[in-house]
């Protein structure tokens, strides 16, 4: 069931009525029933994959918890023993807990690996060795990369003793399947999300209003901006010979806008729906296109994915025993300055490789990840040089220079991101090359852009949509929109809501002849 469907609006309306009418102690059970129903619409058989994740993460967390409990009890009972004995006992228990964790990770990531990467591996084997392995064409269950990573984060946190395991399997099931975020995140943490999920919620008209406003804002971004641009990107990508040069530049810009409006629009609907239910969900974006460098961009774009990779992959690799040994050796061999970079370099490469293949089993995603990694590391290395340059010329703190940096980051990220669109690495490099070899600037003024699947009216609607989006973002950058609205009279609140609904109804790309495009991040 897509967020952009009448089915979903009906589902949500019924759920909200029941949620606030039924006794509060059953609210979370209703959410579980609703979430499983919502997910079953994507194909009931995919519930089996989800059930495996729920059962294994629930079981592993409880098991690990028992091991830690036994360890604490033993330490309490053996107060007089030596430090070495205590250390040896704890090491044994840690090994047991780690074995349970690794087993759980293997089962889940194994399933994900088989269904997501089998064809990619077979294709490459066939290509390299001339074998003729039949491709399996597994269908990826909706949102599996999101809900699985969220659940694995929970088990790792219990292993790290960040919080105790949840004893009720139905509650773990709701944490995994919570319908607003099951398909495209955010990737929440158990200690954050569970507080809201399992609490009893009284109807709060103010929270409900802000939630609804956020939902409609999400529909505005998705239907008025992203889906109106979608056909243009399809046309520009389908016939690459016909659309080189300036069309590639346009494609980079259009895709930057489409992806942002699509993904953040979906997340706005998620956070808004959860807020209508009284449940806080982690923010996933912080106006990333205002970033001045790529490191900042990645702190503001798909935030929960970035922090997941940082907490559960980057840090564990960087500070592991073997990495510290490598670090020591490399400092001896390469000297302090260069040697101490080695752990950071290795971990960054691993994380970006993982981020690339997390997005999809294809070379374009791997190259995309590696290019992000390269730019990040080069920027890191050049930072002292930039500083010297800025100190000498002294324009680093001006509005003009901020603008230059924002512009540079936007286009640099767009350039790397265009790999997502052409989905073929050599083709992408060729197409980017045509921007310099055959720019064809005349296409901008001779009306060719009106033959790409969008009329002048479509472009005007999208243009106005972008201006509204930019203005709201610039306002939110200085002060949160909620806080701004807080001081305004109620009549302004409702006028704003109705104007926004009207804009979506009048200018949204939907209805007969339109098939609302699937959210881009649903495929991951």
């Amino acid at each position: 069931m897509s967020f952009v469907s009448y089915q979903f609006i009906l589902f949500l309306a019924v759920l909200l009525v029941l949620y606030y009418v039924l006794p509060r102690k059953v609210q979370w059970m209703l959410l579980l029933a609703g979430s499983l129903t919502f997910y079953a619409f994507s194909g009931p058989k995919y519930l089996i994959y989800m059930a495996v994740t729920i059962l294994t993460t629930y079981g592993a967390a409880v098991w690990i918890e028992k091991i830690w409990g036994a360890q604490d009890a033993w330490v309490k009972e053996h107060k007089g023993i030596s430090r070495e004995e205590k250390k040896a006992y704890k090491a044994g228990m840690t090994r047991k807990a780690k074995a349970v964790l690794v087993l759980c990770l293997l089962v889940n990531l194994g399933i994900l690996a088989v269904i997501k990467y089998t064809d990619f591996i077979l294709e490459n084997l066939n290509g390299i060795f001339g074998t003729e392995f039949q491709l399996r064409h597994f269908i990826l269950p909706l949102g599996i990369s999101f809900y699985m990573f969220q659940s694995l984060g929970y088990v790792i946190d219990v292993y790290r003793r960040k919080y105790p395991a949840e004893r009720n399997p139905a509650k773990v099931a709701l944490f995994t399947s919570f319908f607003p975020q099951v398909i495209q995140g955010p990737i929440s943490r158990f200690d954050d999300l569970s507080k809201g999920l399992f609490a009893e919620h009284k109807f709060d008209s103010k929270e409900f209003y802000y939630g609804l406003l956020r939902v409609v804002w999400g529909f505005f971004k998705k239907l008025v901006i992203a889906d109106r641009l979608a056909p243009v990107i399809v046309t520009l990508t389908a016939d690459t010979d016909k659309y080189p040069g300036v069309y590639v530049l346009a494609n980079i810009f259009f895709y930057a806008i489409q992806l942002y409006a699509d993904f953040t629009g979906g997340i706005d609907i998620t956070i808004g729906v959860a807020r209508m239910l009284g449940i806080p969900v982690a923010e996933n974006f912080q106006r990333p296109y205002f970033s001045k460098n790529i490191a900042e961009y990645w702190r503001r774009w798909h935030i929960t994915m970035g922090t997941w990779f940082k907490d559960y992959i980057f840090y564990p690799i960087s500070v592991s025993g073997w990495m510290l040994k490598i670090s020591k050796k490399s400092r001896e061999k390469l000297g302090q300055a260069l040697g101490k970079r080695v752990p950071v370099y290795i971990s960054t490469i691993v994380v970006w490789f993982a981020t690339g293949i997390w997005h999809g089993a294809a070379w374009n995603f791997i190259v995309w990840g590696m290019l992000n990694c390269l730019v990040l590391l080069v920027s890191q290395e050049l930072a002292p040089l930039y500083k010297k340059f800025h100190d000498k010329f002294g324009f680093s703190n001006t509005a003009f220079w901020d603008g230059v940096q924002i512009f540079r980051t936007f286009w640099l990220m767009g350039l790397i991101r265009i790999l997502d669109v052409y989905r073929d690495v050599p083709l992408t490099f060729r197409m980017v090359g045509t921007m310099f070899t055959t720019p064809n600037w005349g296409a901008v003024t001779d009306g060719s852009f009106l033959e790409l699947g969008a009329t002048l009216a479509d472009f005007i609607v999208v243009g106005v949509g972008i201006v509204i989006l930019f203005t709201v973002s610039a306002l939110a950058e200085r002060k949160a929109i909620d806080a701004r609205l807080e001081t305004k009279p109620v009549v302004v609140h409702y006028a704003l809501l109705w104007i926004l609904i009207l804009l979506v109804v009048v200018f949204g790309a939907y209805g007969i002849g339109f098939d609302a495009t699937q959210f881009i991040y649903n495929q991951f």
Partner: protein
Amino acid sequence: MDELLDILKELHPEVDYETCTTLVDDKILDSFDIVSLITEVSDTFDVRIPASEIIPENFNSAESLWALIEKLMDE
């Protein structure tokens, strides 16, 4: 503690580590700095800071990091 302050000063000489309590919250220390820091701490104090201890509360000030090092040395 003085040795820890030396390590921190090498990373960002401009920061007043005696008073700053928002090293992570204010993004003074990024993830690259934290990894460098942990490597240096491991060499100097012979303690391993596990990934589970990499939380803002432990790295927001020199004092909290020192408390973590002492705790790990005690274990």
